[in-house]
């Protein structure tokens, strides 16, 4: 057993005190406290948390495990009882020796009521059923009949709970309340106030998670209306999370609305590639086209959020001008031909005459294979640093998803980009004759078309055309992360894997596949033909990975010491 890498960075927590309660007759010990979603401080465990631990569903709208509790929807009302106390302040016992339970005359909201020792929670009583029916009826009387044209249909809590807990018919004969439709809330969001059930999740998210007190409610009573501050756009880098957490179709993404019915979307677990945070995401695709990214819960990385910038940065994958042909010069060719020719060329290369620039957007497996090539030829290597403004929540100043992968595999030094001037100089003075470039346009990073023209061999793999791909002697069309499997190491050392959502375009192949062939051809080393095997081999060879396996990465990854 050599796995020192843990799923969490924290030291082992001290044993937490538990209390015994019953949920619908089922006895369970639950922690006395759970961390506050905002401050992380321990606060008393609530009924809804206890029910979740007992795997008993309590329907809810306003409650969200990552937000402060509001307690306004009243969907989570349950009945409960606590051990009866005698006048001597001692528990009263039943004849059979069990503690007598005094049932509370009033219900309680499960989302805000702490559990106490011996408490019994009842979620299936006729009264609870009636309260749920009542709340649903109230929510529906003024709700528009928009389902056929509503983006949320299919993932709407109002639809789901109506089926599970509601009534089939309506007795409402009055005129519905009308509110603004199609409100332009901000650059990325449209609001339909008639659909809003006023749960305030979006308000709390913006205020308490993002720190932007941008949304609020105006007017009274049933005329309550969600609004941004008058005249101000709802525009921070996290606005689209409100669309995810809105339990109904009130908040819609301008990018996604009316594009696709959600039940047609295939969902693939993946990772955002737009910065070193590497938020866990779900890719929604249909017929080899990507329609949306949504955040996926990962407490070690992104909680349940992602930024708008990363979320909307997927359109390049669907671009029409993707590189789809294998080329030698301007001529189309086959993979077997090009790989053979490259291997032949490299076989003749002198030690030190090869340089490799690999993108820190490549997967760790790909960088690992490129590092093997580099070792063989004693090549000088580097990656391109990419930075931007960061924030306190998620967005990292490092805009590469895998800078740590590049560093761990030895492709880049701690000072990423430090070798680029040396490579340029080597090309200029003729000592470097072969340049291998993966996923970067060198003309934007100090190696212009003139220098590229001096090379004997310019081996380029990329996804989209640029000045470097135009100058390539050998052009290898590669894949977006959505089209292959692989892993990244994020800024904090979290190793996360991602899966394949859609097929590669045209002749394009996952880079690790053809790199694996090339390494075999050039070095004679036998590697693994599967991503699992390749990862496991890498994890054995690179000490930091400490032998962690692909399988052990699971859905949320493993943190390693970097």
């Amino acid at each position: 057993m050599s796995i020192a890498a843990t799923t969490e960075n924290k030291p082992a927590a001290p044993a937490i005190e538990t209390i015994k309660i019953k949920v619908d007759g089922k006895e369970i010990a639950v922690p006395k406290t759970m961390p506050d979603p905002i401050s992380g401080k321990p606060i008393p465990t609530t009924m809804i948390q206890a029910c979740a631990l007992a795997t008993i569903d309590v329907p809810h709208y306003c409650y969200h495990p990552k937000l402060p509790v509001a307690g306004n929807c009243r969907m989570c009302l349950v009945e409960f009882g606590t051990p009866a106390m005698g006048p001597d302040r001692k528990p009263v016992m039943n004849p059979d020796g069990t503690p007598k339970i005094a049932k509370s005359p009033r219900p309680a909201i499960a989302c805000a009521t702490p559990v106490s020792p011996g408490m019994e929670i009842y979620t299936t009583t006729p009264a609870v059923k009636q309260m749920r029916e009542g709340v649903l009826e109230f929510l529906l009387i003024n709700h528009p009949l928009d389902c056929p044209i509503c983006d949320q249909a299919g993932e709407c809590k109002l639809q789901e709970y109506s089926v599970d807990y509601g009534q089939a018919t309506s007795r409402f004969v009055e005129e519905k309340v009308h509110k603004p439709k199609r409100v332009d809330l901000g650059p990325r969001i449209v609001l339909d106030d008639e659909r809003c059930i006023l749960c305030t999740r979006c308000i709390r998210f913006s205020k308490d998670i993002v720190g932007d007190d941008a949304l609020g409610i105006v007017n009274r009573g049933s005329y309550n209306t969600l609004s941004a501050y008058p005249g101000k756009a709802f525009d921070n880098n996290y606005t689209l999370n409100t669309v995810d957490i809105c339990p109904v179709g009130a908040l819609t993404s301008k990018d996604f609305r009316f594009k696709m019915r959600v039940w047609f979307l295939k969902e693939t677990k993946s990772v955002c590639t737009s910065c070193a945070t590497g938020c866990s995401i779900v890719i929604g695709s249909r017929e080899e086209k990507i329609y949306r990214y949504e955040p996926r819960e990962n407490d070690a990385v992104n909680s349940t959020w992602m930024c708008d910038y990363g979320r909307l940065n997927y359109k390049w994958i669907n671009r029409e001008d993707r590189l789809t042909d294998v080329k030698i010069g301007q001529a189309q060719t086959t993979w077997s031909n090009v790989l053979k020719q490259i291997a032949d060329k490299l076989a003749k290369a002198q030690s030190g005459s090869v340089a490799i620039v690999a993108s820190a957007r490549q997967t760790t497996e790909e960088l690992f294979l490129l590092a093997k090539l580099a070792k063989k030829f004693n090549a000088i290597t580097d990656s391109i640093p990419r930075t931007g403004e960061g924030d306190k929540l998620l967005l990292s100043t490092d805009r590469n998803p895998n800078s740590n992968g590049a560093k761990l595999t030895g492709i880049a030094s701690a000072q990423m980009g430090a070798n680029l001037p040396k490579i340029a100089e080597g090309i200029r003075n003729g000592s470097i004759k072969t340049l291998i470039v993966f996923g970067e346009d060198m003309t934007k990073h100090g190696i212009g078309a003139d220098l590229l023209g001096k090379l004997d061999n310019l081996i380029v793999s990329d996804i989209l055309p640029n000045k470097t791909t135009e100058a390539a002697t050998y052009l290898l069309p590669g894949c977006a992360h959505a089209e292959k499997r692989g892993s990244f190491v994020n800024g904090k050392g979290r190793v996360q894997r991602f899966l394949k959502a859609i097929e590669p375009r045209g002749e394009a192949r996952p880079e690790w596949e053809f790199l694996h062939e090339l390494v075999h051809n050039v070095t004679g080393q036998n590697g693994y033909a599967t991503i699992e095997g390749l990862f496991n081999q890498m994890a054995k060879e690179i000490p930091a990975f400490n032998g962690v396996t692909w399988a052990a990465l699971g859905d949320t990854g493993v943190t390693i010491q970097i």
Partner: protein
Amino acid sequence: MPEEFRLILKYADQPGYTPDMECYLRHGGYEALKKALAIQPKTLPDGKTMSGPEQIREDVKVSGLRGRGGAGFSCGLKWSFVDRKSGKPIYLICNADESEPGTFKDRQILHKDPHQMIEGMIISCFANDVKLAYIYIRGEFPEGARILNRALKEAREKNFLGKNILGSGYDLEIHVHRGAGAYICGEETGLIESLEGKRAYPRIKPPYFPAILGLYMCPTIVNNVETLCHVKHVVMMGGAEYAKIGTPNNTGTRIVSVSGQVKKPGYYEVEVGKATMGQLINDFAGGLFEGRKLKAVIPGGSSAKVFKAGEKFKLKKKGPDGKDIEHEVDMLDLPYDFDSLMAAGSMSGSGAIIVMDDSTDIVEALANLSEFYAHESCGQCTPCREGSLWMSKTLHRMTHGQGRKQDADYLLKIADNIPGGRTICAFGEACSWPVQSFVGKFKDEFIAKGEADEAKGEADEAKRAAASSGAGPTAELKIAASPNH
């Protein structure tokens, strides 16, 4: 017939009595404060000492004083819940939002004898180690706010407020905060939110009990104007002596606002439980207009469940042998106190009696109340937000010729889904109790109205059909436009 017992309004209506400091001092003002500040620590038989403030708190418990804002909760007990170990400042807020329909007693105090309330407030603050307190006054009382600010200024000038009050070493500041005109700002946690500058959305309890997590998440006491005035008298006469006024467990006096179809609507201060509902209506308020008969009475502000004329209740009373004997009481013979009205299924609430005689259309009356609640619901929680307007729309329809036979049951079913802990605050009860009680007790009138409308609708339909001889388009039956909130 019992007499008025004027304790709080002792001077307020006397000719020449003015709300300024000089007048108040001439009438023995701020003597209770001086007495409170001078209370010496007392050593108890067990050797522990009890500070002056602790002794006042104990005395308030002994007095049996119950809150005059609506819930009738024991003032001493409320003060005992305050978290005194948190290390955070303790705040006190005077609830001067008086907005329960039918209630007009706090305004008498605020306008005519502001110093009495301020004195009661300073003593209450001193008793609870409060250094900063607020008076939250409804926006519709601009004159009241002006009077209070002037009175506070006078109190500061006399060093009844400010630093080192009367050399006692005790500091206190009081600010006036004006509401912007919403009933829900009277609910204590809504009030606190509003005071913090937010929308008056009442808070969930747990965890936000004011005594622990109140204003700015600090322990907070909210008391009604009248309640705070009583504290002054408890200190002045001592808790045990005060408890002799009124009846057991219902001590002191109460200012009862009587309105509606009576000859002398007005406010009457009586010993709690010493006058009956009937005496308040018929004797104090002059009784009904000539030739009119009593139809209904709302006993404790518009939220309280209505009583129907002639309604009888079984109440328990202690017999000479100390045993409970059950006896039947007519609604008018109910002693006007906290416990009897509760036992009769309603409440004395804010102490406001609304009288309706036989000229009242009971459906219209309820429609009027429901429209108020639909307008005033803060809209935070689902049952109250949606239910209050639904009931109001139904009643609006019923009072505009579009009633249906089944509307009585329709209303009851809506109302039954709102109260009993289903909502965040007691407004849920406030808006549904009137509907439950009006429809429950006058159901035949609601059904009759619906039947009449349905019959008229059918007759109109037949007439139209005859007129158009079946060829023309049928005129659409238009539902009267809903009230505009």
